[in-house]
Structure formats: structure tokens, C-alpha cells
């Protein structure tokens, strides 16, 4: 045991500064209250303080920081989407990721791997070509490649996938990356904390006060707060918080599960996604295979896991990589994915003045953490939707103007 650990284990005083300041009580009022201490809420707090000089802000988190979908996702970062709105938005996020580690002085283990979306059918190849053209139009590296390129990048793959789903080609996206999800929450949280934002964990929002169509305050398990601006960034709890302000939305919750294998020697550099086999996979810096599949088939608002999940996913993994048959699954878990009908998020101002929404992030919102923080902080500070999010507002449903992004979802849902 290190000497320092022994020396300070029994003492109240510790010379190391804590990662976050502890605040014993809530203040009676804040300029902005952010609900949800995941990556999105903390990033918004960070940019509110850093870029807009608004620091009388609190982030309220009912559990612990990053304990929601931020700490449960498979961390794939990419921008090869399908709609112009999506491509521009995610591209800005990929740009923001590049210097975050330096910004935070914290290693996010951002690891640029390259990303293959495997096509096993003509229809999937067609969507790949469509995506590649849209992507190139916006200056994003994205191209359709043949099976031999896949084999070169991942020599252990069985290109016939057990004979029943041969790989015809792939959409290749060189900027595809993975990062350490917890560190993203901590980095944004510490950055916000250093600039004066208060972070309150184990503080659950139980109600929101609205008077004359305007937000006036927030009720929590630790007391009431008055405020004119509330940002809701609660992912899988979004419908519950929307109920508090009487806003209806298309968001529905299905669990999304994931699992990791025991650590093995590095053998897989790129990130691979197969829509037909419902698999996405990358190898972490620790050597674990990080694997995910499609959504659970019915609505559940909890983070329970099922046995069917590792069973089904493992069988598809073995179609692609038969040599893994002796590798053990080490952990599995689930998150609550806040799904939308068009697979685009719901962001921006809402019919309730002072209530701003950053939700509908479903299975795809980790990569967007930086750009959500940027655009939502702007939207809250100026009470005007940022230009990059105008395709994502809640009223698109009422106007029958959806932002169809389903073709770019990682696996067929």
C-alpha cells in the first residue's frame, strides 16, 4: 500500500484537492438550473461558465456524476450521418473532441480508430453510398470500400460471417474514435466547478414550478430553488421531467444493453458495426472487447439486464469472429435510451418559457456531448436556438417536418 494512502486513510484532513467542491446546501436562487449530471448537463454548465460568463449555475444530479447513459455507453464517436442537419452537427462535435484533453488537463483516452459500417445486403450498400455522398458533400471523410479493405483492417474476421451473411462492402469513416466516457463527465464537471458552477449530487428534481407559462423554480429532495431558466438533460428520464412542465413529446424509453469481454491482447484496431448482425464492437485500451447490439424490443424504464442479450450478441459475434469462442464475457449492463421516431434528438426552446430541452438522445448521444454543451449553453444564454440545432426542435413533429436520421443509426432497430 502506498505510504500516502496509509498516512491519510485515518485523517480527516487530506492535502490533495478533491475533484469537485462539496457544497453542503443549495442556494435559494440560481440564474440557471441544469437537471442531470451526465456529460450533456455538465458540458452545458462548462460552456455557460467559460464562453458566456454565466456562473451562478447549479447542476442537480439525482445519483452520481456520469452514472446515467454517459457512463454506460460504448463510446463510439463519428460524424458519418445521413441528414445535412445531422452531419454538420456531429462534425462540429468531432472537431470539439480533438483538443478536449488539453482543455481539461485530463486524459480522455480519445483514440482515433477508423469506423466500418459493414454491409451484408445490397440495400445496406445502397444506404452506405448515399451516406458517403452526403458526408463528402460536407467535407467529411467517408467512402464505400470493398470486403478486402475490411479484411486488411481486421484480419481475424470471417468475411462470410458463418456463410449466412457475407460482407459485400462497408462504409469507412476514418475519423471514427472511442474515448473514456467517465473522464468526459469528470473533465466537464471539474472545468465547470473551477469556474464557480455548483454541482450537487444525490439531488433529485421532484417538480418544476411554472407560472404564466414561465419557469419560476425547481423543487428537489433537498429544498426548493427559484430560477428563471432550467435546462433538462436527463436522457432516459426525459418523459418524467417533461410531465412536470406538462409538455408532451414523442420520446419513448427502451433499454439498450452492452457488455465487455475479459481483456485480451490487442487484435482489433478499428471499430466495426454490422447492422444486419446487430453488433458493434471495439477493443478498449485495456484489451476488453466492448460490444453492443440493438435496442431491447419493448418499453422498460429501468436499467435491468437480461440473459437473452449476451446469448444473442455472442452468437452474432461468433459469426464474425469464430476464434473468440473461448473468450469470456466479463460484465453486462443496460441504459435507458430516450428514443425518437426519426432518430434525431430534440433540442432547444420549448413552449414553456425558460425551459430548455436537450433530450431524445437515444443510442447515439455520447459523441454529441461537446456540441450539445456548446449549442445548449448558447441557447440558454441568448434564449435563442443555436443555428446548428434548428433541425432538432420539438415543434418539428407538430409541423410534420421530421429529420430522418434512422438510416445512419448504428444497428437496425
Amino acid at each position, binding site marked *: 500500500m502506498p505510504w500516502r494512502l496509509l498516512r491519510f486513510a485515518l485523517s480527516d484532513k487530506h492535502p490533495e484537492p478533491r475533484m469537485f467542491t462539496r457544497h453542503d446546501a443549495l442556494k435559494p436562487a440560481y440564474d440557471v438550473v441544469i437537471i442531470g449530471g451526465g456529460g450533456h448537463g455538465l458540458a452545458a454548465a462548462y460552456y455557460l461558465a467559460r464562453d458566456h460568463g454565466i456562473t451562478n449555475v447549479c447542476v442537480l444530479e439525482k445519483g452520481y456524476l456520469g452514472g446515467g447513459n454517459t457512463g454506460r455507453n460504448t463510446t463510439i464517436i463519428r460524424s458519418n450521418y445521413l441528414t445535412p442537419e445531422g452531419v454538420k452537427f456531429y462534425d462540429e462535435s468531432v472537431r470539439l473532441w480533438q483538443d478536449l484533453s488539453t482543455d481539461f488537463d485530463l486524459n480522455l483516452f480519445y483514440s482515433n480508430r477508423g469506423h466500418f459500417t459493414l454491409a451484408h445486403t445490397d440495400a445496406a450498400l445502397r444506404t452506405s453510398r448515399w451516406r458517403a455522398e452526403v458526408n463528402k458533400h460536407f467535407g467529411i471523410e467517408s467512402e464505400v470500400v470493398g470486403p478486402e479493405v475490411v479484411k486488411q483492417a481486421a484480419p481475424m474476421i470471417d468475411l462470410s460471417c458463418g456463410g449466412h451473411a457475407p460482407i459485400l462492402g462497408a462504409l469507412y469513416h476514418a475519423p471514427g474514435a472511442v474515448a473514456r466516457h467517465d473522464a468526459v463527465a469528470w473533465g466537464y464537471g471539474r472545468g465547470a466547478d473551477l469556474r464557480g458552477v455548483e454541482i450537487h449530487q444525490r439531488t433529485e428534481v421532484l417538480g418544476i414550478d411554472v407560472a404564466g407559462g414561465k419557469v419560476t423554480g425547481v423543487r428537489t429532495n433537498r429544498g426548493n430553488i427559484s430560477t428563471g431558466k432550467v435546462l433538462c438533460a436527463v436522457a432516459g428520464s426525459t*418523459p418524467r421531467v417533461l410531465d412536470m412542465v406538462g409538455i*408532451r*413529446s*414523442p*420520446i419513448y424509453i427502451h433499454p439498450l444493453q452492452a457488455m465487455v469481454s475479459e481483456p485480451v491482447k490487442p487484435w482489433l484496431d478499428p471499430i466495426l458495426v454490422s447492422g444486419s448482425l446487430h453488433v458493434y464492437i471495439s477493443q478498449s485500451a485495456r484489451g476488453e472487447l466492448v460490444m453492443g447490439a440493438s435496442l431491447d424490443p419493448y*418499453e422498460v424504464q429501468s436499467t435491468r439486464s437480461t440473459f437473452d442479450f449476451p446469448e444473442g450478441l455472442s452468437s452474432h459475434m461468433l459469426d464474425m469472429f469464430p476464434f473468440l469462442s473461448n473468450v469470456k464475457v466479463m460484465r453486462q449492463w443496460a441504459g435507458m435510451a430516450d428514443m425518437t421516431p426519426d432518430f434525431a434528438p430534440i433540442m432547444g426552446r420549448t413552449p414553456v418559457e425558460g425551459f430548455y430541452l436537450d433530450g431524445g438522445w437515444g443510442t447515439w448521444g455520447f459523441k454529441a456531448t461537446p456540441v450539445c454543451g456548446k449549442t445548449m449553453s448558447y441557447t440558454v444564454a441568448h434564449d435563442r436556438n443555436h443555428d446548428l440545432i434548428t433541425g432538432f426542435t420539438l415543434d418539428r*413533429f407538430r409541423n410534420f417536418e421530421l429529420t430522418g436520421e434512422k438510416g445512419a443509426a448504428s444497428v437496425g432497430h
Partner: protein
Amino acid sequence: MKIMTCPVNGPRAISEFAYGGEIRPMPDPATCSDDAWADYVFNRNGSPGVKREWWCHTPSNTWFVAERDTARDVIVRTYLYAGDN
């Protein structure tokens, strides 16, 4: 494996069933406003609770109603649809 009870065929593995969403009354598209129609088409009751849902036992193509606690993932009861009550 989770078990669901089909009102016709009895207890079966949940993988034999398809989820059809919450039972919701449809407004008359000929007479309702665009807003009411959009609300019906897109909006959902996404908060947890005991919900009445459509389910189908796929091998026998039996559609029926399940009451399910979506917070605990517990099936409360299942029965054949007998009109709205």
C-alpha cells in the same frame, strides 16, 4: 427467459411475442385538427407506470392486451381484447 401468458396458448417464452405499443384511442382523421392528429401520430406517454399494451403471439398471430408495469418489467395480466372499457 421471461415468460408471457398468451390468452389462447398459455405461457410461452417472451421471444415468441411482438410488442405493439400502448393502447391509445385514435381521433377521427377526417374531423380532428392537424395538431390533434400530430399528437396522436407522434406523441407517447413515455413515463413509467402500469400500461395497457398490444402484444402479439407471433406463431399463432394472436393479438391481445397485456397490462405491464414498465418500471419493473413485470407483466400484470393478459387477456383478449373485448372493446374499450
